[in-house]
């Protein structure tokens, strides 16, 4: 058996500059944040992010200048910050190419990748400017010439339904990432992944990618996961690296383990309004700490304990969420 367990630093070293990357999670839930911080400390560059939807994790990578292409449908911090200030700024500076698809388009692109086929057909989002051929940014930048085997030669294609005659259908190209970085609740020693609660688009993201890095709240015996195989999502042979990292998704939330740290995300959103404030925040929370342990110590026990989920309810009953 290959031992896939490694340190966070080693796992993140698997990611090369200019790689195409995707992630587990949904907006501000179950994002592999500890790996994002480590990617920033290792100064990854030129990343090509492809995501069903995006959030706090990508704002950090984009703000730090690690990203050159972003293909997705949405970016923000939900309740804790509606404007993607980093993407907005980098787009204007023309240092990031933004390719807009819809949610369903991105989902089907990743599903096509996972299924090993070149595209999937869909009826979603007909009649919109998402399909405007003038707004094909990778084409505009001359990147759809086939030189990069991860970039399809077209943004969309259209075809008549050949079987039921129901009209013109959209074809969306498969996504084939180099690496998927996952945050999971539990992973076995051989890599079997168990995700509890919503699985979002994790199955498709993992299966579409060449390599898979898993940060897990807990590494557990494979024999334990095999007692209830129907609760497992991914077999171990699809996983390349395993890192046990409690609180590894903070400040995003993880079902059954901890809630979203709303005030922390709100601080990131506020800091991201200017380059200077963003750099200060990064110095304090990313470059100023050596590793995940230092990050957790800096957060402190009482902050983390407030976020900890109730084992029956699967969310925290101690966190103050509203104005009352």
């Amino acid at each position, binding site marked *: 058996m290959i031992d896939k367990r490694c340190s966070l630093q080693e796992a993140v070293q698997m990611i090369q500059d200019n790689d195409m990357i995707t992630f587990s999670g949904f907006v501000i839930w179950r994002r592999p944040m500890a790996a994002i911080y480590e990617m920033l400390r290792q100064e990854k560059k030129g990343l090509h992010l492809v995501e069903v939807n995006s959030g706090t994790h990508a704002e950090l990578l984009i703000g730090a200048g690690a990203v050159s292409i972003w293909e997705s449908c949405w*970016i923000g911090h939900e309740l804790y910050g509606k404007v993607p200030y980093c993407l907005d700024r980098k787009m204007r500076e023309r240092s990031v190419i933004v390719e807009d698809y*819809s949610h369903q388009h991105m989902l089907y692109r990743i599903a096509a990748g996972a299924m090993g086929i070149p595209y999937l057909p869909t009826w979603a989002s007909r009649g919109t400017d998402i399909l405007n051929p003038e707004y094909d940014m990778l084409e505009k930048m001359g990147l759809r010439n086939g030189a990069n085997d991860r970039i399809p030669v077209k943004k969309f294609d259209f075809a008549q339904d050949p079987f039921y005659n129901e*009209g013109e259908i959209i074809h969306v190209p498969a996504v084939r990432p180099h690496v998927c970085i996952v945050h999971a609740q539990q992973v076995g020693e051989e890599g079997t992944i168990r995700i509890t*609660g919503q699985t979002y688009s994790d199955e498709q993201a993992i299966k579409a990618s060449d390599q898979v890095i898993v940060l897990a709240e807990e590494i557990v015996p494979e024999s334990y996961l095999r007692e209830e195989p129907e609760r497992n999502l991914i077999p171990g042979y699809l996983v390349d690296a395993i890192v046990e990292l409690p609180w590894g998704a903070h400040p995003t*939330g993880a079902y059954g383990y901890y809630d979203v740290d709303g005030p922390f995300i709100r601080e990131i959103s506020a800091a991201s309004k200017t380059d200077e404030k963003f750099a200060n925040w990064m110095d304090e929370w990313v470059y100023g700490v050596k590793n995940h342990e230092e990050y957790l110590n800096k957060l402190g026990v009482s902050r983390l304990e407030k976020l900890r989920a109730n084992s029956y309810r699967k969310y925290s009953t101690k966190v103050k969420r509203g104005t009352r």
Partner: protein
Amino acid sequence: MTDKQYAKPGEYSIVDMLAVASAREVKDEEVVFAGTGLPMLAIMLAQQLNAPNSKLIYEAGTIDSKGDSLPSSVGDPRCVTKASVASGLFDVFNQLQRGKVDLAYLGGAEIDKYGNVNTTVAGDYFIPTVRFPGSGGNPDINSLARRTVFIMVQEKRRFKEQVDYITSPGWMVRKWPEGTLVHRREAYGAKFRGGPSAVITNMAVFRFNEEMGTMYVDTLHPGVTREQLQENTGFTLDFSQCRGETEPPTYGELHILHDIVDPEGIFLPSVK
């Protein structure tokens, strides 16, 4: 004061009005698709009142949950509590495309008189004045559900003759590759299912003349005049089918909203 009595101006906030007006759009037994925010308040209120058997699908992949703590996001563990199924995006977006969704609530930064919505960029696409978060599932839901209801802020700059970028399709949409504006029925052909049915703002409720593909004023919220509404709209309003005043919230609805649906004040302002 009884539960059925209407609250007086000053006794409710504009968010209360939005939530209540939105909740009234749900019919019993409908399958409703919801994203984060006010839509959650609207559907949870409807389930307590006019549509107890409606089924709710949260965009991140939970179906018909029966939680007792309001989720702050569709990805929240609170969406999973006592759900019929907790799955993922692939399941719920496939169901949407399959035609299983009756109604969905959506929002947007800008809307035009055809119900086309922009949540992508303000100004030129290549050199935008503002980058918004992007489409999310808005255009997918709006093109595949039978009916959609938009909850929006009424401002002149947001209610435009024509939006800068059609993120989400209304009644007159683009036909590619030419980009000509055509009626949604023509663009969607055999797969036409319906479209935007109402726009609910802080000032009024709008509906659509489906044949013309244009918006008209259905009701004005209490205290709002036609002149005020026109001043906050970037195109000439059609009042020809205006039915008068929007029903204000009742004391019973306000009680459910503030004491049962959102007692923590996550989406509702604390001042009633």
